[in-house]
């Protein structure tokens, strides 16, 4: 049986859950942001593994015979993995770093104002 991507999907789900564990249980603000970053990495791994097809190479056409005629096009199509999830993940990673940067800016300001990184100290607005 061709090796499926259970391993990669399993690792990805593991990463997501570990990320959420940090987010939901750790008191330290930085740990929470770190948890989100790890969860994002997990999601990205999951999406790329969705598009992976065993035994196929990267979606880059590097020898001329690949597109000389119509028949070759179909051959080439059968040679590469799905490029779309990779495009999506490329965007998702950069969004991840963007959000992380903004969160860290918030954490720095919160520390400067609250003098602590404990998330429970920042719960004044309630009810």
């Amino acid at each position, binding site marked *: 049986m061709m090796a*499926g991507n259970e391993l990669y999907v399993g690792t990805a789900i593991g990463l997501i859950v570990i990320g959420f564990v940090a987010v939901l*249980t750790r008191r330290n603000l930085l740990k929470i942001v770190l948890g989100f970053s790890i969860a994002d990495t997990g999601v990205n791994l999951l999406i790329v593994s969705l598009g992976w097809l065993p035994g196929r190479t990267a979606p*880059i056409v590097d020898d001329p015979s690949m597109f000389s005629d119509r028949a070759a096009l179909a051959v080439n199509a059968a040679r590469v993995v799905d490029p779309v999830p*990779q*495009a999506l993940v490329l965007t998702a990673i950069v969004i991840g770093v*963007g959000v992380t940067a903004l969160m860290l800016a918030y954490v720095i300001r919160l520390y400067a104002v609250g003098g602590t990184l404990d998330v429970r100290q920042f719960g004044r607005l309630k009810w």
Partner: protein
Amino acid sequence: MKQIVAVVALATLAILLWQLAPIAMPSGLGVVAQHYAEHGVQDNRGANLVTSVVVNYRGFDTLGEVTVLFLSVSGAAFVLRRRTGLEVHEPRRASEIVRTGARLLFAPIVLFGTYIFVHGHLTPGGGFQGGAVVASGVLLLLLANKDHPLPHGFLSWTESLSGLGFVAAGLAGLWAGGSFLANRGILPLGTWNQLFSAGVIPVIYTFVGLKVGSELATLLDVMMHAADEEVHQ
């Protein structure tokens, strides 16, 4: 108590997600992916299919993507606009090796980064990756000397002009090629695997590379000097 509830909830979530594993099994290319795989090279003459997808087929996403990064950096600068009043513990001066190494390595790193985003349509890599490498070069300078005078003006102009360049390329596509960010009628698609091929894709990716590079550099600078003085620009 809340911790236990959280862990139990996450375990259940893991099981819920694991139920999706069968869907994730490899099952061949979708209808859209099939077209990209077959005609990707034909449509844009670009060797790197992912780059064709990122810049041309789903170019609008990438425009959104660049906006996200631009917004995050501006947002971070906005959030950190006030003097934080944190006592700044003087960092240890970088060792001699790092300082000289930084001066030596900065140029090659930037060159390598430029190579990456210029060849985005041929080899793996592109605007985002190249930009990040260039930014790491700037990072090296900042590590060597925290108060290294960064050319803020230059960075800001690069960032704005490259962003405008991207939008201009899109509008050119609208004007010449019939729809926003189209890759027809602006630059010749050229022949496959040449540097000047895939029409406007390398141009757009170069703009993206420059923008990401300057933005990440600004981001590093903003975060490093968050405590020092009010960020006014």
